[in-house]
């Protein structure tokens, strides 16, 4: 049995949040630079140039990349041979979230669904965090974090297709979602697609797909090919950076696939804006 102390988790989560708010990860930067090189529209090119400049300013001046510093989303893998001392893991992640958002001068964006009242004084600063736990072998604790803004969540969709609709049905659905979203989710975007499982499994997979290094090959060759096919179809829509028209709308398509029920084909599309703020730590 290995032991980790509650306070160490709080501290690590806090640091991870503050760092991620002002430092665009390498994969997103690389993808944006490539899009800048390849963009044909001068207007869209100018937008991407601003995004690269923004990333530079955020980093050197330690200023949040975007004012929407998101809800805090975590995927946590807990080794079965690990013991947490001094409190629960969930509390530690929430406390680290609150501290990180407060000390980093990030925005508190959680509110009540009906009254729309900000919950910072009721539940905590930008709390609760959205946490997905998974139990795994070993004695390690792995935490993946993303600051997920509202603009790109608002255009995300899930639908259960009929099995006969197959791959073409999936392509049509994804195209419909991205076409309708247009400029709203701050393109260029990354598109996470969850296929299979149940309704909620597809949705969670589509979110988790966004954590993969942008544009890295899918380990499954069939899915890798499918990702490239969808990417091409989506870029043919011509939406462009910030929707002003252009060739570089989607930086990457990432798919996660699960076995599903014989009667259904669930598909979920989770959109990530260009401000793809995510990070990963292992304790």
């Amino acid at each position, binding site marked *: 049995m290995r032991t980790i102390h509650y306070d160490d988790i709080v501290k690590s989560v806090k640091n991870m949040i503050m760092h991620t708010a002002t430092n665009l990860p390498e994969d997103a930067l690389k993808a944006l630079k490539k899009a800048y090189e390849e963009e044909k529209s001068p207007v869209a090119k100018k937008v991407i140039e*601003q995004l690269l400049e923004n990333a530079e300013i955020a980093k050197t001046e330690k*200023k949040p990349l*975007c004012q929407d510093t998101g809800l805090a989303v975590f995927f946590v893998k807990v080794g079965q041979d690990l013991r947490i001392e001094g409190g629960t893991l969930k509390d530690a992640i929430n406390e680290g979230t609150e501290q990180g958002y407060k000390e980093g001068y990030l925005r508190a964006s959680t509110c009540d669904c009906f009254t729309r009242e900000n919950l910072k004084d009721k539940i905590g600063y930008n709390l609760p965090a959205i946490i997905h736990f998974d139990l795994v072998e070993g004695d390690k604790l792995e935490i993946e974090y993303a600051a997920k803004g509202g603009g790109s969540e608002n255009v995300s969709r899930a639908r259960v297709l009929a099995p006969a609709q197959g791959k073409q049905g999936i392509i049509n659905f994804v195209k419909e979602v991205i076409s309708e979203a247009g400029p709203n989710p701050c393109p260029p975007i990354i598109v996470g697609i969850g296929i299979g499982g149940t309704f909620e499994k597809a949705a969670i997979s589509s979110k988790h797909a966004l954590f993969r290094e942008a544009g890295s090959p899918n380990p499954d060759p069939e899915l890798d090919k499918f990702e490239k096919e969808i990417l091409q179809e989506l870029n043919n829509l*011509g939406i462009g950076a910030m929707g002003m028209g252009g*060739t570089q709308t989607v930086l990457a398509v990432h798919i996660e696939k699960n076995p599903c029920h014989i009667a259904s084909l669930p598909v979920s599309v989770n959109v990530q804006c260009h401000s793809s703020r995510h990070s990963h730590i292992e304790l």
Partner: protein
Amino acid sequence: MSNTYHLTTPLSEEDVTKLKAGDIVYLSGTIYTARDAAHKRLVDLIEKGEELPFPLEGAVVYFVGPTPPKPGEPIGSAGPTTSYRMDSYSPILIKHGLKGMIGKGKRNQEVKDACKEYKAIYFGATGGAGALLSKAIKKAEVIAYEELGPEAIRKLEVENFPVTVINDTYGNDLYEEGRKLYEKKED
């Protein structure tokens, strides 16, 4: 063809009617921030015939909910939020003198019609460029609804704040036209 202009607020009818979708504009002067909750209150005041916290004539509003400023900074990160949430309020403000809105994302037909009829512009700022855009904001002061936090109305002094004309006073829409130019239809 896109032109570049430098304009100072408040905007006149002459200022806005020379702009076309796709033009780049650098705005200077005073602009006001407002998101959904503040818009709702402004429209309520207009309907009751009461005075607004700032003069609407020629005004420009910026749809933004900034991050809290660090000590010594006028404002935190301050990029645009998605504009459609203001669609049901904007036409009323435009009718009462508003000349410019800054946000990101599509507007509905009522807003575009109001821009045409009463001569107003919908400008797009680059979403997710909050650190960059905040550099053009020299001063910020909460002037109403402090209790709304990031949604309070702030008076901003801006210098060369970079925006692009999305909807002009002639019914043009850059999102539709730009996309048409680069869309590849299947054979």
